[in-house]
Each structure stands twice: as structure tokens, then as C-alpha cells.
């Protein structure tokens, strides 16, 4: 990795500035509100991808259950919005007015106790981060202190994604079932469905993403970040040096979960619903591919990865729906076989030296952490 101890090296400052320009200037100018909202949705996946860069790229922990945390964050937000939308006036035609419509359809006559706290926005916002973190903490403590890692961890997190999906679909009366929580309208009286609201939410999303990126950058530059990389490469040596490996892993796993939870909440706000199709095994593993395409070692790459893959998905599935799965499958294979460091790796190997040559400088100071270490 790069040797600089500064928070941001010069090329990293440029990298962050370019991304900021893309998110805050280029995309809003170039796109209409509908497309901008779509890109806002893609950027919510970037939260997950950044978390995965820390967990997987730096820490070597591949979680195939990030959709769980994304979904938990999203559901916490959706529960608040749903309660706000289900005023007794709005739901007067139900047999029990004042409870969410799907509860009424499933013959529930009162709001379940664990829904009650979600009447408060403060609690819901706290839960968006806290619920995924607590969940990740439990999984992390159970797995990492028992030294479960690698592929076993991946399979077990995948099982969690399966469990949560089945649970949400099965408990229709409490969770909205397979349709999810839909028909969300206002946030504290502010209509989130208007064009204006969508644009504001896009910018809020962008600012939050940058907060997450800076947090991730801080972790990478700290001693913790270096220990994570040391653990990924030689776990036993770190352990023999006296560090408690499990604690670091739990921390980074929880951090990734918190990022994913924030992303999920922003997804709910921008798209206006939350459903189990965003929680299960397939979306969780797709989130890994966003990270892998962007470059598993680069937090900025992860953002571009999420944007590019999702944009390609929308474009291809609009025009050639039958080709998309082939393309996605090919992408998985190509990124693993040919470009293990993703876009960031391609940039660092082919683009950065040319730019450096152009400006006649040494090419030593590359994209943040890209392509200097071999994959895994």
C-alpha cells in the first residue's frame, strides 16, 4: 500500500474532488429528475460497496449477507414512513384504521409492540444504524471469536440472508410480506414523492456518501486499517504479535453493516418502498460484484463500480432483458479472472501512469491503495 501517513495524499484529494464533481455537478446537470433519482438509487448501493471494501478488500472477510444490513436499515426507515402514512384519516376504509394497510389485510387489529417505537423519527434514525450494527455484532462475536473465517463465513452470512428473506416473506402481517412496505408518502409532513424532494434527497444522499467515504478513509489510514491488511495477509502473525484479531474483525464488520444500513435507509427514502427482494442471497451477492468491479481495494472505485454496474443493469435490462444475466455472469467471471482489482486496478495500471507522464511527474503516488497488493 502507499506509504504516506497523511489523511489524503495529493492524488487522493484529486480523486475525491473528481467524484464530488461527478456526484454534485455533472450528474445533476446532465440528467433529468427521473434519471437523477435512479442514480441516487445506485449510489445507495455504493454505501454497501464501500463497507465491503473495508471488510473484504482490506480485512479479507467476504460477507455475502450485506443485503441483510441494507434491508434492516431500509426497513427501519420504511417502518417510520409507513406509520406516518397510515394516519387514521388515510386509512379510514380499513377495518382497523390507523395501522399499516398490510396489517389490516392480514387481520391484525392492533399495532405490534415492536412497531410502536418507530412512531418516533429519532428512534427510527437511530435504529437505521443501530439495528444492523447490533445484528452484525452478534454474528461477528459468534463467528470471529470462534475463528470462523473465509468461505465458511461467506456461506453462513449467505444463510442469514436466506433466513431473513424467508422470515420477512413468511411474517406477512408484520412485515408486508413479499410486496414489502410500499406506499410511503411523507417524512414529517414533507412529501418525498415530488421532483423537488427527490432532488434534495439525492444531494442528502451524496453528502452522506461522502461522510461515509471520509470515515472509511480515516479507518484505512489509521493503525486499524494497517492491522486489517496485516490480518488479511498473515492472520496468525498478527495474532502472535499480541493483537486480538477477532475484535478488529468484529469492528470492521459492524462498520460495514452501519454503512449498509444508512444506504438502505436512503434507498427507502429515494425509491419509496422496501421489499425482501433487496435483502436475499441474489442482491447480497450482486453488492459484492459492485465492489469487485470498482476494485476491492479502492473506496472510490467501489462508488464507481456501484454506479457503472447498476447503470449497465438498467440499460441492458431495458433493451435486451435476456442478455443481462449473461452479461452479469460474464462480468463476475471477467472481474475475477482478468481484473482482480477492478476499475481502480485498470486505472492504476494503465491510466494513472499516462496522466503522470502527461504532467511529467513520478507515477509513484497512485489512486488510493489500488493494485499494489495482489488480490487475496
Amino acid at each position, binding site marked *: 500500500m502507499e506509504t504516506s501517513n497523511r489523511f489524503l495524499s495529493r492524488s487522493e484529494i484529486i480523486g475525491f474532488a473528481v467524484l464530488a464533481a461527478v456526484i454534485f455537478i455533472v450528474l445533476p446537470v446532465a440528467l433529468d429528475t427521473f434519471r437523477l433519482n435512479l442514480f441516487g438509487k445506485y449510489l445507495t448501493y455504493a454505501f454497501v460497496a464501500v463497507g465491503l471494501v473495508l471488510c473484504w478488500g482490506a480485512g479479507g472477510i467476504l460477507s455475502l449477507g450485506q443485503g441483510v444490513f441494507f434491508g434492516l436499515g431500509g426497513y427501519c426507515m420504511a417502518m417510520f414512513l409507513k406509520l406516518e402514512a397510515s394516519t387514521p384519516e388515510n386509512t379510514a376504509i380499513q377495518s382497523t384504521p390507523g395501522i399499516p394497510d398490510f396489517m389490516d389485510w392480514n387481520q391484525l387489529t392492533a399495532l405490534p409492540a415492536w412497531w410502536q417505537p418507530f412512531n418516533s423519527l429519532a428512534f427510527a434514525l437511530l435504529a437505521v444504524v443501530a439495528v444492523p450494527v447490533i445484528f452484525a455484532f452478534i454474528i461477528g462475536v459468534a463467528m470471529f471469536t470462534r475463528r470462523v473465517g473465509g468461505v465458511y463465513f461467506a456461506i453462513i452470512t449467505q*444463510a442469514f440472508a436466506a433466513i431473513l428473506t424467508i422470515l420477512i*416473506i*413468511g411474517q406477512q402481517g408484520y412485515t408486508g410480506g413479499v410486496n414489502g412496505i410500499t406506499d410511503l408518502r411523507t417524512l414529517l409532513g414533507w412529501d418525498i414523492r415530488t421532483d423537488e424532494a427527490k432532488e434534495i434527497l439525492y444531494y442528502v444522499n451524496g453528502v452522506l456518501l461522502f461522510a461515509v467515504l471520509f470515515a472509511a478513509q480515516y479507518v484505512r489510514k489509521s493503525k486499524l486499517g494497517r492491522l486489517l491488511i496485516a490480518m488479511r495477509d498473515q492472520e496468525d502473525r498478527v495474532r502472535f504479535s499480541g493483537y486480538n484479531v477477532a475484535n478488529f474483525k468484529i469492528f470492521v464488520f459492524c462498520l460495514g453493516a452501519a454503512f449498509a444500513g444508512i444506504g438502505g435507509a436512503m434507498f427507502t427514502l429515494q425509491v419509496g418502498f422496501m421489499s425482501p427482494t433487496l435483502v436475499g442471497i441474489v442482491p447480497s451477492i450482486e453488492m459484492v460484484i459492485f465492489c469487485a468491479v470498482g476494485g476491492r481495494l479502492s473506496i472510490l472505485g467501489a462508488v464507481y463500480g456501484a454506479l457503472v454496474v447498476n447503470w449497465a443493469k438498467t440499460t441492458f435490462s431495458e433493451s435486451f432483458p*435476456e442478455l443481462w444475466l449473461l452479461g452479469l*455472469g460474464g462480468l463476475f467471471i471477467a472481474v475475477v479472472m482478468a481484473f482482480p482489482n477492478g476499475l481502480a486496478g485498470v486505472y492504476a495500471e494503465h491510466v494513472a501512469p499516462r496522466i503522470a507522464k502527461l504532467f511529467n511527474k513520478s507515477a509513484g503516488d497512485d489512486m488510493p491503495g489500488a493494485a499494489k497488493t495482489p488480490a487475496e
Partner: protein
Amino acid sequence: MFSDYSMSELGAIFAMQGFAGLILFSVFVLMALGLAIIFGQMGVINMAHGEFMILGAYVTYLMSNLFSAYMPGLFSAYFFVAMILAFIASGALGLLVEWAMIRHLYKRPLDTLLATWGLSLILQQIYRSVFGAREVGVTIPDWMMGSMPVTDLIEVPINGIFVMVLAVSISIAVYVLMFKSTWGRQVRAINQNRVMAGAVGINTEWTDRLTFGIGCGVAGVAGSAFTMIGSTGPTAGQLYIVDTFLVVVFGGAASLLGTIASAFSISQAQSIMEFFLSGSMAKVLTLLTIVGILMIRPQGLFALKLRK
């Protein structure tokens, strides 16, 4: 929850659900055997395992159509031909995949996982383009239809018995291959110490390829058997892949006996709970129990003692 039923009814329920569990057990064993070879012995995560199984199922479907169109006289025996062809088709695809993809990734297990997931997406799309998105069913020969009454309350379906017999015979075949044949000895030697195995003259590359091929072939046979009790769709493989991995991990990755024992306990627990709870809750409880036990005992039920 037991008070609504009389004793004899409860007994019959347990017997019938137990039998349904045995069929599920057979499916799990058939699927998990291939995976136990590939994952347990080679440490390769093959997320496309379900798709290799579906390939076997589609081969059986084609054979069923072919026999009923051209050789109706031999129709009652088509299944055995189909099974052999399923083994060959899935096995050949497995050899190809190992050669093109897996052999480059042996040192990067997590990457193998992603690459094979990509492969599974491609195979799914190919199945969808070739066979259509709708599920297809095979025509079951007459002798497999119907059920056998055991007592007044208990009946067992014949195709279920057939799948069970198949699962047992394939388990025995894999056991013999694994523990009595030269190939099996080589595979186990490589699993224990790859470098030393190479040093004593075992062609590790070729053994790896063959192992992957045989594992995939067994998956094809599993898919073939699967058509006897359910229909086949392009995404059917994905439904089972997590269950199957959990079966193998729960049993202790390198142990065949462990795989069978864990398939048995998981399938029995699930099908007996399914009667009293809703299907989804039974599944959630089963999965949670497995994950819980794996947290206490990460090496699975039966672990080989190995110095790594």
C-alpha cells in the same frame, strides 16, 4: 399443539412426515454428495452446483420426450439411460469448467465463489433461452406411479422409495470410489498434503480435474433423480444451493459420513416441524439451529483431525 390428535394419529403423522423427510433427505444427500467431493475434498466453492444438477434434470427431460416419441416400447427403462447421460453431460461440463476457470483460482477460494456464481447466472440464462422460462416436468413411467399402503393410516409413494434407493446406491458408489479406488486414495492424499502427494508421483492437476468432473457428474445424477419428484425450471438450482452448502458444512466438510448424517438430521427436523408450523417458519428454525450449532462447533459434526 399435540392435544388435537390421538396417539395413533400422531404416530401416523410422524411416520408420514418422517417419510417425507426421508425423500427430502435423499434429495439433500444426492445434491450434497457432489458438493462434498468438490468442496470437502478440493475446498472449491462451486456456486453453480445447482445448475449442474439442473443440467441433469433437463437431460432427463429430453430423454423422456425422446423415448416417448421414438421408442415407446422402452419407455419404462428410459430413466436409467437418462441417468447415465446426465452423469456424462454434467461431468463433461464440469471438466470443461475446471479446465477453463477453476484451475486458475485454486489459491483464491473466495474468488472461485464469485466466478462460479457468474457461471451459474450464465447457465440459468442459457437454460431459459433453450428450454423456456416455464418449469418442465418429465413423464414418470407407470411402474413408478402410485403409492404403497403400509398400514391403514400410512401410505408411501413409490417414486419416493425409488429416489431413496437411488440415494443409497449412489452414496455407496461414492463411498467405494472414495475409499477403495486409486482415484479416491489420490484425492484424499492431495487433500491432506498437496505438495507431498505431488512429490510421490500423483498427477495432482489431472486428479483435481477428474474430481471436479465426478462431483459435477454426481450432481447431474441428483438432478435426474430430482425430476421424479418435482418439476424443473431454470432457477430451480439456486433454491437449493444454500441448503446444500449448509448440509456439507454442518456435516464437517471433509467427511462423507458427516454429510449424510447432517442431511438426515436437517431434513427430518425440517419436515417434522413443517407439519406443526408454517413451512417458512420451519425452514427459518432449521436454518437458525444449523447456524447456531455451527457457531458453537465451526468444524461441523464430523471433523477430520488434520494438521494444517
